[in-house]
Structures are given as C-alpha cells and as structure tokens.
C-alpha cells in the first residue's frame, strides 16, 4: 500500500542538506506505525513525500497505486482525496465553525451537496465532538481543535491517516485523548502513520516504530532486533 524504495531527498537551496538518505520501508493495509526521531531527522519529509508535496531526488515512493516517478499534478489531488492529513498546528479556518471546517474539505473537492451534512455529522461524532459542531475554533480547547482537524481528515474515508506531530501542541491529558482516537481510527481499518518525538507515547504501546536520524532510517521495530544508531 505504501512503499519507500531507496528514497533520497536533498533540498538544492540548503547547502548540503540531505533530508533523507536511502530510506526503504513498507506500510501494509490497516497498519499503525510511529515515525520517530529528533527534530530535523526527516520525519516531516517522509510525510510530505507521501502526500506528494515533495518528490524524491532519487528512489521511488509508491502509495495506493501512484508512483512518485509518474504521478501528474492532477493525480496528486486525486491521491490526497484518499488520504487524511493532520498537523501539529491544526490548520483550521478561524472564521468557520467546526462543522463548516469539516464540510469545507468536501465542498472543495466537489462532493454532492446533499451528502455533506450527513458525512460531517458522522465524522464529528467519530471524534466525539458532535455537541460542539457549531463552535468556532477559538471557542474550543487545543485537544478539541485537533479533533476537528481529525474529523476533517476522516470525512473522506481515507485509507491512511498521516499525522505530523498531532499531539505536539497538546497537554498530557489531551495527548492521551488524541492517541486513543488514533487507535480507534486504526481499529476501524484505516492505516495510521504518525510522526512524533514523544518517546513516552511510543514506548507505552507495541505499535511498529520507524526511527530516523539525520535522514537515515536507523531502526524499524518490524526488523527487530534493534540496530543501534551510530551517532552521538
């Protein structure tokens, strides 16, 4: 479903900045995996390569039948309709209510208008925010805002949820809530790839963990025993 094949990514403008070096891994259908590593290790780059905001300098990214070497700009939009993407900073539109923020994701891909209210209500119920559908983002707590972002990501029934530090801005309690939500989402069949540097969270579970350091994949719990990082 997702396959990274010897992927290297360098950014031409930043001198000598190799964001990823020779990274290969697979993520199966319905799988849950953490992507960990210090800041600048290449976690976000992997996610950007997944939703094709970036293309590899060499190697190939394959996701749901699309290949980074062949995909056209129009197909990128098609691909993203089948992905759910969530960020640390929620990325909500401040002047739209929770339900309008979720509906926005359907409207802009031209979903039939009649189907929108039902889908929005279902997504908000799934994240436990049905009672706050008409609240504006500023009237919601951080955890609740992130739930709205999750509802927006889920409203199109994605096959994989890509979450870039989704708990990075949240307190301990909200983090636990969001993580629980991620488990539920995964239990319903959606694959989850979550970038985080919250090692506590990773250790508490037995989900697969991919660890990056300086752009290299230094550990994959699917290939245990552990390969020690040769750094610092």
């Amino acid at each position, binding site marked *: 479903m997702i396959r990274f094949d010897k992927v290297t990514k360098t950014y031409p403008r930043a001198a000598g900045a190799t964001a990823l070096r020779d990274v290969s891994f697979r993520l199966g259908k319905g799988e849950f995996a953490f992507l960990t590593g210090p800041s600048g290790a290449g976690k976000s780059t992997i996610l950007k390569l997944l939703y094709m905001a970036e293309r590899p300098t060499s190697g190939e990214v394959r996701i749901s039948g699309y290949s980074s070497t062949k995909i056209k700009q129009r197909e990128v*939009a098609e691909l*993203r309709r089948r992905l759910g993407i969530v960020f640390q900073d929620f990325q909500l539109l401040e002047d739209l209510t929770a339900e309008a923020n979720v509906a926005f994701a359907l409207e802009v891909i*031209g979903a039939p208008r009649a189907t929108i209210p039902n889908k929005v209500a279902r997504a908000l119920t799934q994240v436990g925010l049905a009672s706050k559908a008409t609240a504006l983002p500023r009237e919601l707590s951080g955890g609740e805002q992130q739930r709205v972002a999750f509802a927006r990501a889920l409203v199109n029934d994605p096959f994989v949820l890509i979450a870039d530090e989704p708990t990075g801005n949240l307190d301990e309690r909200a983090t636990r809530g969001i993580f629980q939500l991620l488990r539920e989402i995964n239990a319903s069949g959606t694959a989850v790839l979550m970038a985080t540097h919250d090692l506590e969270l990773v250790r508490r579970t037995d989900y697969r963990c991919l660890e990056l350091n300086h752009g290299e994949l230094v550990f994959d719990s699917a290939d245990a025993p552990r390969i020690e990082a040769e750094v610092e």
Partner: protein
Amino acid sequence: MLAFRTALTAFRRAPLLSVLSVTTIAFSLFAFGLFGLVALNIKNALTRVEERVEIRAFVAQGTAVEAIATAADEIAKYPQVAKVDVITQSQALERARSELGEFKDVFESEFLPASMDVKLKPGFRDPASVKAVAGQIQNLDFVDDIRYGEEWITQLYRLRNIAGVVGAALGIAFAVVAIIIIGATIRMAVLARSKEISIMRLVGATDAFIRRPFLIEGSLKGVLGGVLALVLTYLAMRTLEQYLHFETAFFDRRMAFVGVVFGALMGFMGSAVSVGRHLRRV
C-alpha cells in the same frame, strides 16, 4: 456557481482588504483615465486643426468660369479630395472684406483672383499627400499660384507625431504601473488566504478549483475599480470644466466599456499571476 459564491464570501470575509484593492485598482485606473482624457482631448484638438488644412489654387485672370467649374469637378474626383469650392473674384472680395473688418473699405474693385479651395479627406492631410495633390492641381495651365501652408502643415504633423509618441510611452508607463499595483494588491488578498489555499490543496482540491474563485474575485474587483475610476474621471472632468471654463470631450460608451473591461482583465491577470505563483510555492 460554488466558485462565484466563494468569491463573494471572500469579499464578505475580508471587507477592508477588498475595499482596499478595489480602491487601489480604481485609483490606478483613474490616473490612467485622466491621462487618457488628456490624450483624447489633445487628439481632438489636433483633428480640428487638421480639418483646416486646405489647398488654395489661384486661377489666372480671365479664365472662363466654365473651365474652372469643369476643373473643379475633375479635382473633386481625386481619391484624396473631400470637397472643392470654387471662389469667384467677387466672392474672394467678400471674404477679404469680412476678414478684414473695419478696413473693408480699402478694396473697391475685384482685384483678387478667383480660386478653387480644395479640402482633403482625413488621412490625406499629411505634408506628403498635400504636396502631391497640390502638384497635380498646379499642372492645370490656368492655375497661377497654389498655396497650402507647407511649413504650417509640417509643423502640425511634427507636433502630432510627438504627441503620439509621448502619449503612447506615457500610456504604457501608466498601464504598467497600474498592473504592478493591482498585482500587488491581489497578491495581498491571496496571501491573506494562503492558509485556506494550503488546506484546499491538502484535502485534494484541484489547482483549477482553487484558482477559479480568485480569478472571479479579481475580475469583480477589476470591474468595480474600473467603474469607480470612470466615475472619478468624469467628476474630475466636470470640475475642470467648471473652474477652467474649458470644454472637454469625455470617453464615448465604447471607450468607457473598454476601460472597464481593461480593469476586469487586469484584475483577472493579477489574480492569475498571484495565485499561480502561490500555488507553485505551497
């Protein structure tokens, strides 16, 4: 339809920014419009002066009136000629008298020669054409002398050419400035909505879909700015007329329409460039 609604929503969501961009478009088009008005009036004035270009062919004393009339008919058939008036000796005297006013009594007899006054069609009033027609007329054996103010026409045309070149250069400069300013305002509108654009992209909206409301919004702003500029230009003209007692011509309907379309086009292109640049970056 959704794109149109989104464009209108954008007006409602950021009223200040929208008013600012419409005003900016209006004022840059206003400057362009004022310049256009000045250019139009100079052109009209020159055309009026040009209409007075004529060739006067003086006829030798004693030529039969019939011969003059036949020649005049011939000349009227020249493709460059609009009209030929035959001025008899007595008419010439009348004209001299009326032009001289209080000194009219100094002429007593018909000593002035008869003439043919030849008016030329527009497009044939330049020095070369006038000279060519004059040369043809001079070939008639009863034509004594021919006058057409060669120097005056040359000067007039030099002035016209200078006005044309300066006008075109200034016009292009004004248009470029207007396009840059409008582009910058629309860029602000795009930046103000950059978050919305990046969310649209993330959830899988196509670039065409994202672009559409901005293009509509830009065109609408351009139309509004254009209409406002037209009103401002009109008011400015009326004010000038009132205080300077200066009769001026205003744009006719076609020109006004072209101006508004020009505004819409600039809004459209400004948006297209700004959104395009933004989409390439995010």
